[in-house]
Every structure is written in C-alpha cells, then in structure tokens.
C-alpha cells in the first residue's frame, strides 16, 4: 500500500474513532435526563428494580395526571410553584441583566479608581458557596420580614447572579471596538443612542448568554430556596420536589414527573435564545 493510501485510511479511521467517542460521551451526558423522563412514566417497583430495567414494560402518564389533580388527591400545588418560579426567575434575570449590562459596560469602557479591586471583589463573591449564605440570610430575612416572599428570593438570586453577568458582559463589550461607538457619535448619535444602536446589538450574544445563565441559576436553585420559602406563596418548583417525600417513602415517579415539568420551560427558553448566541458578529468591523 502506498503512503498516500495509508494516510487516507488513517485519516478516515481517526474520524470514525472521534465520532464514536463523541457518541459515547453524549450518551453519558444525556442518560440522566433520559432516565428522569423514563422514570416519570413507570411504576416505582420498576424504578427501584435491581438489576435496573432498561426497557420499560408499560408506560403511563399517571404521575402527570396525579400531579395536577389537586391537593389531597395525590397532587401538589404545581401551578402555584410554577408561578412562583416564573416570577422569581424572570424578575431576578431582568434585574441581573440590567445591572450586568451597566456594570459590564462600565468595566469594559471606563477607567475609574479602584477598578481592578472592585472587579476582583465581585469575582471573590463567586467563591462563597451559596449554601454558606443560607444561615446568615435566614437571620437577616427573618429580621426584615423577607422570609417566604418573592422579593426575598429575587434579591438573593440577583445578588448571586450579578457578579457573573457583569463578568460575562464585560468580556463581550471589550470585544466591541471602541471606534464603533465613536463613529456612531460622529454620525449623529448621542452616547445613549450609540450604545443601543451599535454596541448593544454587537454584545447581544454575551447578554443573551448571561440571561440564560441567570435564569437557569434562579430556576434550578434549591438549597437557598428550601431555607427561605415556607408556603405556596413563594415556594419554587425545586422546593416543590420535596412534597414527594414522606416520612418513610419517596415517590420517585412523581418527583421525576415534576422534574420533567421543570426542565421543559428551561429547555424551551434556551432553544429560543440560542439563535442570539451566534458569535463572530463583530467580525468585519475593523481590519482583517
């Protein structure tokens, strides 16, 4: 066999090997999600079986029907939990993005005293595990009456998200050449118009990513929410999962069904926002 043919074969072989490796990795990543969907559709006996039953014998939507059938009939207040989750996650995402855009822009564009110290300080807050904050937050909230309120959760999640959104959006604004905003000003824009007409559209992928991250953090967070919420007035979906645990039993099927209900909006949102995540929009602005 000549060298070219063997090189060609080797190239094809390694492409196949790469595809197989990717398939296996994706399988491992997707398996837990698939398992949750599967478990929400079959009885607890099958879920708990050892060795595991990979292919379900019968599928039913009983868990979903029960979930929505009202308190006392095996159901949980899923509508209220859903409403709370939406209010808390959406509001805290909007506030985090507003602060993140202002902060990120300021860090990317302006020079001011103590800039690096501020930035480092913001990043350091990320090193504190959220759960470590739960006790101090609990005492504080108990004093000011924020326990079991939407506002309390919104404030907590906004505080958690802001350092990250600032950091992410700062990076994207840095990639937008300063010349563009200046060109826009010369073209007749005010500083404000230059931002919205030119810099904002170009940093949109970063702002969209920050938005998704902020939303998912608030949507999925459990540890803090389980401490700071009490009733259906403010309990979020992840806390609602606890409704399926009793003193001696856990309703795994119901829990998985609620998890699926939680995952679907997050998936839909990510899918809707992903078209804004196209990168490389700034290419062509300057030489190249």
């Amino acid at each position, binding site marked *: 066999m000549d060298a070219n043919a063997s090189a060609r074969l080797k190239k094809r072989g390694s492409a196949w090997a790469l595809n197989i490796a990717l398939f296996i990795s994706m399988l491992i990543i997707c398996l837990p999600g698939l398992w949750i969907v599967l478990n929400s559709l079959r009885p607890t006996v099958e879920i708990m079986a050892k060795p595991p039953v990979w292919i379900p014998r019968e599928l039913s939507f009983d868990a979903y029907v029960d979930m929505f059938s009202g308190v006392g009939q095996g159901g949980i207040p899923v509508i209220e939990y859903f409403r709370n989750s939406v209010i808390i996650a959406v509001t805290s995402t909007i506030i985090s993005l507003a602060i993140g855009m202002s902060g990120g822009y300021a860090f990317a564009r302006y020079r001011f005293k103590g800039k690096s110290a501020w930035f480092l300080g913001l990043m350091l807050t990320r090193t504190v595990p959220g759960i470590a904050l739960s006790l101090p937050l609990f005492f504080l909230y108990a004093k000011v009456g924020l326990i079991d309120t939407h506002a309390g959760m919104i404030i907590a999640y906004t505080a958690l998200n802001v350092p990250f959104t600032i950091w992410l959006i700062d990076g994207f604004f840095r990639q937008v*050449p300063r*010349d*563009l905003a*200046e*060109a*826009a*000003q*010369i*073209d*007749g*824009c*005010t500083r404000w*118009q230059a931002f919205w*007409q*030119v810099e904002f*559209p*170009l940093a949109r992928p970063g702002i969209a990513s920050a938005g998704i991250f902020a939303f998912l953090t608030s949507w999925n967070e459990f540890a803090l929410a389980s401490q700071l919420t009490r009733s259906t007035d403010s309990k979020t979906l992840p806390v609602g999962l606890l409704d399926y645990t009793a003193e001696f039993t856990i309703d795994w099927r119901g829990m998985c069904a609620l998890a699926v209900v939680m995952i679907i909006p997050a998936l839909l949102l990510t899918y809707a926002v992903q078209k804004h995540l196209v990168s490389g*929009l*700034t*290419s*062509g*602005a*300057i*030489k190249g």
Partner: protein
Amino acid sequence: MATLTLSTLDKKYGGFHAVKGIDLEVADGEFVALVGPSGCGKSTTLRMIAGLEDISGGELRIGDRVVNDLPPRDRNISMVFQSYALYPHMTVAENMGFSLKIAGRDAATIETAVKEAARILDIEPLLERRPAQLSGGQRQRVAMGRAIVRDPDVFLFDEPLSNLDAKLRGQMRTEIKQLHARLGSTVVYVTHDQIEAMTLADRIVIMRGGVIEQVGTPDEVFNRPASRFVASFIGSPPMNMAEATVTRGALHFDDGTEFPVPPAFTVAEGRRVVLGLRPDDIYPEGHGIHSESGHAVERRELPVALSEPLGNETLLFTEVAGQNWTARMLNPRMVKRGEVLRFHLDLSRAHLFDAETGLTLRG
C-alpha cells in the same frame, strides 16, 4: 464646507501634556495633513477636532462657530477611522445611510444619498453586503462613503490607509486625491507616512512632542525644512546628516573631513552646525540630476559599502564624515561592494542646522 481654526489648542492627560497650545488655520476646501512620529499629538489633535477628546485649553472653531464643548454630532464633521469602524451588523447601505437615519431623514432621501455616494466611490454592487464580506480596500471605500453621505463641513481622516497593502495604498491615495478635487471639501488628514502627506496635502503640518514644528506646502517642507527634525522626517530615504564645526569658512567634521560652507549660508566662526544633504544630492559622477555644472559641487572618491538596486535607481551606502550616508544613483549600473566611485556632493542644495537647537540657519 467651512474653515477650521485652532487657537492655542491644548490637551493634558493628568500630568502628561499631549498637545501644547497649537495654532492652525485651515482654509475652506483646503487639504491639510498632520504628520509626525507616534505620540506627537497628531491623533489627539484630530480627536479634539472631532469632539472625541475634551479640549483642555484654547479655542476650536468650525466656520465662525466655537465648538469647544459641542458633542461630535453637533459639529457637522465626518471621520474615517484607521480601523474603518464599519457597523458589522448593518449592510453597506445601512452603514452609509446611518447618519441620515439618525438625523431623521426619510427613506427616499437616504436611498438617493447612499446611491450617489456609492456611485462616486464605485461600490454600487456592494450595497447589500455586510462589512465581513468585503475586502480591505472595499471596506475603506465604504468608510469613505459613509463620510461623504453626511455632506459635512470638515472631513477628518485618521491614518485611513495604514491597514492596506502597499499597492492598494497607492491606489486609494490617488482616489482620495481625486475625491477631494471633486468635492472640494475641507480635509484634515492624519498620517505617519510622509509620502501620503506629500502626495495628498495642500499644506503639511509636522508635529513633534505636542508642538507644531513646521507648516508649509509639500515643496516648502521638503526644500526648506525649518528644523533638523523636519528635514529628517520628510523625504525617503531620509536626509543625510553630520555634525561639524565652522573654522576658517569651512565645515570641519569630527573625523577630519572638510567641506566648504554651502553657498546659501553665512555662519559665524566656531559654531557647531549640522550639515544635511538629501540622497538625491549625492550621486556618482554621471548618475545624478542636479547641477552637474553647479558651482558648489564637491567631488570625493568614496568606497561603496552596500548597494540596493531598485530598478530605475540604485541606493548606494557610503561613509561620509564618519556617518553612513545614502546616495541615489540614477540610470544605474551594477556596483560591486567596495568599489570606489567618484561621488558628486551638490552643496548648493545642502542644509545647515544649528547643532544645539536643531533650527535651520537659512536666513
């Protein structure tokens, strides 16, 4: 179109004095180039004119309006950036029409203006493309188109050609010149490339360390440089220089070489001076343009250290007065390394500068 007046214009960044009270008058329709090495304050000056930098002191007028504190959008100027600064999320047509859109003009007016500018710059087929789909030269044209559409009082160019390759740069230079002739607009053009300045400008402003060293036509700054700095900055290859002391009416160089004082100058005995001679004015016998029969031609037998053939001419490097000097050989022939040639040094075209102040000694 309008005049532009800078009166003791000043810029300080904290303790750093970037522009030190410069005065400049640009006439209506005039093309003025600001040149100088990096950090000389030329770009800062341009940015002050544009309104992108605050003015620390002095006065800036466009026409008869003082515009010191007006934001860029109220100055009615256009600027072409070194990076082009095209909006990547807009098409070429949207880029060019952006200023009119912001000004609230109707769609028909914008379209007419954009089409007209595109026709002038020959970019009509590109109007629906985005900047990322254009080559460097096309982007450059679009950036100029965006400036034209506004019909501004003053055009500002900030090193607009420095990102292009040499061939395209030459071509765009010609186009800018034609465009200026056609539009008759007032232009301030910043460049560090003295060839661009020489070829384009009606007048050249040479800056160094935040001050203006000389303002003059290309002919003036080339043939009558006000200082040693201007002489070395304008002209390529740069002017040859060597320090000497005037003794008994002659220039005595540190290595013992002696030349007569150039005829256009009278210098006091004992003064330290710098002799400057352009490469065009030192050439092997029979290979130069200037006054072969001139009365101030010095002849010297000198060995050639190195030669650079350029086709139509050859640059020869040889040691004169202890310095490496460049000579220009027209109608060239092969020159071997170390070959001794009879060089003519045309002192009637030489320059003398004060060794301390660097200023010309021409009366």
